[in-house]
């Protein structure tokens, strides 16, 4: 089967998402040993942003229920650990909220153990905690999860290596260019200094942006500590029309 090629219709007026130079960790980060055989060696080829890149899946609402944002009430009993509220806004780099976008999270339990067969850390599983959550941002780009604070855990990257406590976050935004998977950390963690994943981000100020802020306003008396964490995705400029310099 071949596709008939219709005649070209001239340049399209599309939004353009400036590239995030220097923000993300380099794929080739040898301190993080898992990257050694997996990071590509060739430099990436610049891809002009077209329709496939400036669009993206606008989905999630149909696969998320309100209960998915509370990781503490999905089992027969309550999970062990420090109950926390994690909330914040999803914005683009122009400061505009990103409403109606799917956020997926996963994390270890309070003992630092994942509910996953590959995790062999000798810490207890919690039958009341699976560690997965989902929600959609509201009209102002806000999200809110109720969970328990994950524990730190050892890993075999280097001698006596330990991961700082973190929650994995996955976001879609509105365009393929905005897709982001990252990790949220907790303030004051003594393990940051020796963590090659956290420190793979070249700019120390950018690293700090992965650390949530304790917030007494979010904290609920006699119930749960509150953390705020805003997430900033790439933003778009109005049009790429005749932006030949970017191609």
């Amino acid at each position, binding site marked *: 089967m071949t596709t008939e090629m219709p005649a070209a219709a001239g340049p*399209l007026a599309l*939004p353009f998402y400036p590239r995030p130079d220097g923000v993300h960790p380099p794929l080739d980060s040898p301190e993080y040993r898992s990257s050694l055989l*997996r990071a590509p060696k060739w430099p990436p080829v610049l*891809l002009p942003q077209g329709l496939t890149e400036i669009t993206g899946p606008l989905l999630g609402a149909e696969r998320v229920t309100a209960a998915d944002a509370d990781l503490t009430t999905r089992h027969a009993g309550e999970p062990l650990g420090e109950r926390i509220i994690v909330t914040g806004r999803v914005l683009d780099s122009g400061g505009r909220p990103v409403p109606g976008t799917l956020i997926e999270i996963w994390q270890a339990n309070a003992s630092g153990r994942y509910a996953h067969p590959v995790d062999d850390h000798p810490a207890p599983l919690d039958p009341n905690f699976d560690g997965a959550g989902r929600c959609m941002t509201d009209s102002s780009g806000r999200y809110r999860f109720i969970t328990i604070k994950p524990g730190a855990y050892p890993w075999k990257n280097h001698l006596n290596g330990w991961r700082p406590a973190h929650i994995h976050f996955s976001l879609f935004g509105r365009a393929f260019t905005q897709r982001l998977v990252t990790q949220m950390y907790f303030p004051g963690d003594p393990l940051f200094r020796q963590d090659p994943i956290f420190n793979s981000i070249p700019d120390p100020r950018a690293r700090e942006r992965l650390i949530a802020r304790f917030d*007494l306003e979010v904290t609920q008396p006699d119930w749960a500590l509150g953390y705020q964490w805003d997430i900033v995705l790439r933003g778009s400029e109005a049009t790429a029309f005749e932006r030949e310099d970017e191609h």
Partner: protein
Amino acid sequence: MSDQQTAPPAAGQLTPSQTVGPFLAIGLPWPDGPQVAGPDAEGAITISGRVLDGTGEPVPDALVETWQAAPDGSFAHPDDPRGGEDPAFRGFGRCPTDAGGRYQISTVRPGALPGPDGRMAAPHIDVSVFARGLLDRVVTRIYFGDEAEANAADPVLSSISDEGRRRTLVATAEGDRPGRFRFDIRLQGSGETVFFDV
């Protein structure tokens, strides 16, 4: 106390990427993730392959995500200026790799569509790969081996001068099985897949 104020981040302060780690299977797979379209849909195709590391070993803890146009080349998205509206077509697929590094996506063949400079782009699927060891996703594209004419005219594909490199972006039709394509993703080393900076 200043550390309790809610201040919006300054413009441009992007959130950096981090790896999905080895336990993405807790949070990311969807039961219907690999089924972008049903097997009875017109133009139904299956794309399968393996994700391999720098020694050719399978990567058993990766996630492959796909995003593509509908068969008419449109996107059900407000930023498609041609007004493509087929919300019934999800366009998005997601499949974790198995112990052998294998993934499979069932979908329909995307249509050709205008590229950013107005020249026609050959039918293609954008791919994100996430895995332990990847501190950011890597992005590649699937083109179709039985679209030789469209591929030859595609501005992105034809900009890659090395034929061996270009070939890493083309899914090969499995001769005896119509609608079935093979697309392996080599993260590193011999035959390394072309990855894009989007």
